[in-house]
């Protein structure tokens, strides 16, 4: 099915509305209904609401978007407060605490934070500081989410983060990373360089350098996940690239150097191509069509006007791929066997 004409796929219609907000003037009530549902399913309704804030939107849709903006404001406040709570809990930790993803965009005041939904708090610390960070968090009211011994030892042996912790009173999760990809994945990002090059924020917390932010976003999307949040990830990359390249004309070169250092040149190139196709992101690297780009875009835009995930086969393919990327086949078989015996899904 093509990406244009009357049978426009709803993931593409969300991309269109975000990049060309004037285009929504053509929408009737059904069109708005489908757009809002698809945007919500893609976790981009917050962004859509902010982009449409100063534009004429028909009343019933405007009402929905106004509510979303209220939620955005509350979500932003909560996310920054959560970062502050973690900072207070980690006051005794001498190393750098680096904010990642949405909370970092918000704390650094980047355009990518505008309307972005922020779930868990993600932080990065040096691997040799993990034990101390873990102990400090546990002493300040965080507790384990998964008390399962297999999951726990799996995380500790193979993952790039501690098993997730949740705060007993505030009910918010924190993911403590020591690098940005699972240890079983192919590329080996230079975690020490990520931390050493991080930029200090006014609060005393840190955020990744501009180039490393994009390396992380691309690694997270292309080399790790099953692309279920792919469209939102690409939107992050679009906003970051636009902002950083307008502030620094040589940003493309800086990004190339960091991507090489972290062994992430191919994922970053792929992410830049996909963002260019979907959102018209400025081509800071030469754009050469990639073999499977069309398949990635099929997966990323797979949502309908009811908010349902479509293209089941494509999605399953990417789900299996996500596991193959994270671990070698024999290890994957052992992992899935253990999970299946325990009655877990996936």
């Amino acid at each position, binding site marked *: *099915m093509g990406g244009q004409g009357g049978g426009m796929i709803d993931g593409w219609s969300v991309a269109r509305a975000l990049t060309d907000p004037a285009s929504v003037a053509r929408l009737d*009530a059904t069109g708005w*209904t489908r757009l809002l549902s698809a945007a919500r399913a893609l976790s981009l309704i917050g962004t859509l609401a902010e982009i449409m804030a100063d534009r004429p939107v028909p009343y*019933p849709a405007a009402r*929905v978007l106004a509510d979303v903006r209220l939620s955005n404001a*509350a979500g932003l406040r909560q996310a920054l407060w959560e970062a502050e709570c973690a900072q207070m809990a980690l006051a005794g930790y001498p190393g750098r605490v680096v904010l990642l993803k949405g909370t970092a965009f918000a704390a650094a005041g980047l355009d990518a934070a505008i309307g972005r939904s922020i779930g868990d708090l993600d932080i990065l610390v040096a691997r040799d500081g993990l034990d101390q960070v873990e102990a400090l968090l546990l002493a300040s009211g965080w507790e384990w989410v998964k008390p399962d011994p297999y999951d726990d030892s799996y995380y500790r042996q193979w993952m790039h983060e501690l098993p997730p912790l949740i705060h007993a009173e505030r009910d918010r999760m924190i993911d403590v990373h020591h690098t940005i990809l699972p240890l079983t994945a192919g590329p080996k990002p230079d975690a020490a360089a990520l931390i050493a090059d991080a930029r200090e924020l006014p609060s005393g917390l840190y955020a990744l350098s501009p180039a490393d932010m994009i390396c992380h976003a691309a690694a997270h999307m292309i080399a790790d996940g099953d692309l279920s949040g792919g469209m939102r990830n690409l939107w992050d990359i679009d906003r970051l690239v636009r902002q950083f390249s307008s502030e620094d004309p040589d940003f493309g070169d800086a990004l190339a150097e960091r991507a090489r250092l972290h062994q992430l040149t191919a994922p970053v190139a792929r992410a830049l191509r996909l963002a260019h196709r979907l959102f018209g992101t400025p081509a800071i690297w030469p754009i050469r069509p990639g073999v499977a780009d069309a398949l990635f875009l099929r997966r990323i835009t797979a949502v309908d006007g*009811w908010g*349902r995930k*479509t*293209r089941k086969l494509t999605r399953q393919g990417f789900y299996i791929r996500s596991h193959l990327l994270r671990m070698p086949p024999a290890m994957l078989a052992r992992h899935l066997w253990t999970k299946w015996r325990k009655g877990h899904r996936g």
Partner: protein
Amino acid sequence: MALAMRHACFITVGPARFRIGSDWRAPIDELRALYADYPLDEVVPDFTVRLQATSALRRYVRPQVAIAGDFTLPDALPLPLEQGLLAAEMAMNLQMALGWRRHLLLHASAVSRQGRAVVMTGLSGAGKSTLSALLAERGWRFLGDEFVLLDPDSGNIAPFPRPVSLKNQAIAAMEREVDDETRFGPVLRDTPKGTIRHLRPRTEWIEQMARETRPGLLLFPRFGFPRAVRRMDEAESFVRLTQASTNYVALGERGFDALTGFVRSVPACAIDYATGDEGVELVERLWSEQGAKWGDRAAA
């Protein structure tokens, strides 16, 4: 690729607009019948709800309805298709509980008279729903049996008069009270909450559902206990209502202001009663004691 859900309808209740899609015809037909008096025209909805088969096979063989939509809980259990109506109701409640931001939402029932509302809240099974249904058959305006919507700016209550969800013994009690059989939905047996039957509010209360009202009295009813009345102070009401609200935390400062304004503006009592008649009588007595103080200020 399916371009639309096979069956769909739109329902407006008070200020909230729903779009409900279903893989089967039956739940949509049942909704249309139960909500016959409500606006059913197609509008851009606040929430989308989906009743979908748990798998392609399950659409036909011992069909199971999974609840999905804009807001979902990860561990929501599917229901058999015969309980599709209940699944739709639960899904609509869930959207309100998790997604509504325009009002502070209290898990409570409410009725009003002369422009003043009695808000009744309490744990599930305390009898607030049945008590509101009884009052609504005895001259009170019905504002809702599940959620009370408190406007953070005006302090007013926006009616949300969904059909009353009657459970177990309450079904027979209301069947005796209401002589119009067409206002009842189908009897749903063996649901996770026991036997359930819906009762559609009187048409006049549905027609007036856009008209807001002032809060007048806050009650914490408990059915099945010897008759007792206890005054409750603002602090205890406040704490209990934070627990009865599904979006108090999400509203942040607006929620705090709305709730403190509410508990300061109304007197509150915990009431215990042994029978429905006794409950009605207690509410009416407390209301008229309070009404004397409002005097002429009561709006029409």
